[in-house]
């Protein structure tokens, strides 16, 4: 297997969205997530020598990012001084009289399972989007995920509305077929 090369000049374009998405599901705050991603890139630069080329760049960066996220949580916890543990079932008068039985986990609740599935789905979508031509990916992201107005995108990228819809159409068709192969 060919050794993976490292090339930091392309990191931001290639991986920032992937890393950001990975972080935001874990820290729930845009600013913190951006800081963490930035720290990760810096740390990656610092330890470029240690990159052996056994894993892909993305995997390597993710492993740095994981440590950064753990460190982040450690830091905010030590600031608090102590972890707070509550064992009362009810301490607010509003819920007084509720039965504990009503508060146990619902066996039909599939949140955890759904979350897991969504994470995998997110990765699948990411891989498919990264296969799109850059322009299509950019427009599609802006329209679908960031929810920009058509006019706003047209202004920013200097294209006409009908041009935009053609790009969207192509991106959607390609994405659909890619996801069909890899997901459904």
């Amino acid at each position, binding site marked *: 297997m060919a050794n993976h090369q490292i090339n930091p000049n392309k990191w931001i374009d290639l991986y920032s969205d992937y890393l*950001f998405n990975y972080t935001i599901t874990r820290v729930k705050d845009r600013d913190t997530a951006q800081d963490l991603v930035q720290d990760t890139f810096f740390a990656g630069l610092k330890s470029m020598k240690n990159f052996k080329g056994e894993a892909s760049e993305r995997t390597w960066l993710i492993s740095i990012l994981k440590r950064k996220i753990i460190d982040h949580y450690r830091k905010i916890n030590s600031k608090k001084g102590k972890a707070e543990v509550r064992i009362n079932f009810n301490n607010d008068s509003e819920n007084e009289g509720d039965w504990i039985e009503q508060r146990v986990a619902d066996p039909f609740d599939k949140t955890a399972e759904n979350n897991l599935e969504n994470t995998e789905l997110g990765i699948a979508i990411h891989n498919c989007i990264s296969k799109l031509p850059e322009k299509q990916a950019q427009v599609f992201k802006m329209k679908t995920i960031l929810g920009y107005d058509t006019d706003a995108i047209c202004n920013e990228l200097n294209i006409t509305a009908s041009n935009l819809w053609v790009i969207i*159409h192509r991106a959607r068709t390609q994405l659909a077929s890619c*996801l069909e192969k890899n997901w459904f």
Partner: protein
Amino acid sequence: MSKKKKILLNCTDANHTCNKSQYNDASFWEKMKLSLHLLYCRACRKYSSNNAKLTKVMTESNLEFLKTSEKENLKKNFNDELARRN
């Protein structure tokens, strides 16, 4: 005949409207014309349902991306750092 008066869409226009309706950009009249087209066009029905599926999947996955400005910012900081190192 002007374009507005046309009741029967061709498939290209139908796809266009279908894409628009995925982002709630289609007008009521456009949607009516689309559903009329879907009544008799099997290929567009398929396209339409796939398209809706894609939208559903995209919203379910809760993907987040950096805004363009945020990305620019990140890039600037990174390039500064890169320049400092070299």
